[in-house]
């Protein structure tokens, strides 16, 4: 990975849920960090602290949030971003699907698989396909966040980045 300061663009992509979020940090097209954070219900201070640590560590230029986020968590992110003067961008689910569309409309698992192909370091954490009646795997949130970041990057190219 080459770090060129003249065209550096660092983003933090989030997939927000009640009591948890998945995140992915990108620097230009390179994936820097990824993971999941969760907190007990009604402990928004904990959530703020966890998100605050990520913001301090990675100092993103902008936050990218997947559409359909939980209202309270979204308000928390907006508030923290406003304090730190970081712009927040919403990415529509359609935009994420379009970024990974081949012939048919891709499911979240298809998108997660495509993300893992692009970033092999994520392949170890790729969950098995969901069976009928089973809930969505927790780890998928991380892939949703990475897909959101990639959808943003495909629409906002930076010099030296593959589109």
């Amino acid at each position, binding site marked *: 990975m080459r770090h060129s*300061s*003249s065209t*550096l663009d*660092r983003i933090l992509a989030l997939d927000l849920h009640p009591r948890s979020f998945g995140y992915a940090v990108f620097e230009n097209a390179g994936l*820097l*960090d990824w993971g999941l954070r969760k907190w007990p219900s009604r402990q928004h201070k904990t959530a703020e602290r966890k998100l605050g640590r990520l913001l301090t560590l990675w100092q993103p*230029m902008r936050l990218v949030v997947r559409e359909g986020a939980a209202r309270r968590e979204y308000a928390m992110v907006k508030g923290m971003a406003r304090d730190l003067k970081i712009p927040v961008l919403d990415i529509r689910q359609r935009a994420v699907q379009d970024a990974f569309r081949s012939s048919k409309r891709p499911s979240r698992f298809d998108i997660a698989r495509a993300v893992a192909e692009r970033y092999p370091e994520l392949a*170890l954490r790729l969950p098995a396909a969901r069976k009928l009646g089973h809930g969505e795997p927790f780890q998928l949130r991380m892939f949703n966040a990475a897909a959101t970041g990639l959808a943003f990057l495909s629409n906002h190219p930076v010099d030296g980045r593959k589109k």
Partner: protein
Amino acid sequence: MAILKLTSYLRVYRKKAGLTLREAAYLLGISHFALSRYETHLREVPLPVALCCCLLYGLTVPQAFAGMYDLCAALLARRLALFRNRLGRRIANNGPSDSLTQKLSWVTARIAHLSTATL
């Protein structure tokens, strides 16, 4: 808006290598608490640990410590420019000598090298 490189990218390369914090700390011979602090820029990385990290992940110093490297290069370039001015004044006052001229050309070459190395 241009943003700065991070002080170090140790966490990035550890995760890319698929190592956990404890595993990497074991390989580096330090506690995972210490490694966590180095990775989150809460503490400066000691030189032996920095070199071990570069060897472990197969990195060069500018790759692993991109922000710190740029900062050092910028500071050094400024000091070299000041030193070049001082040498220039000495040559103007005392007349050119072999050693002063040689030093001046060396300093000028270092400044040129630093400006290309940090691009």
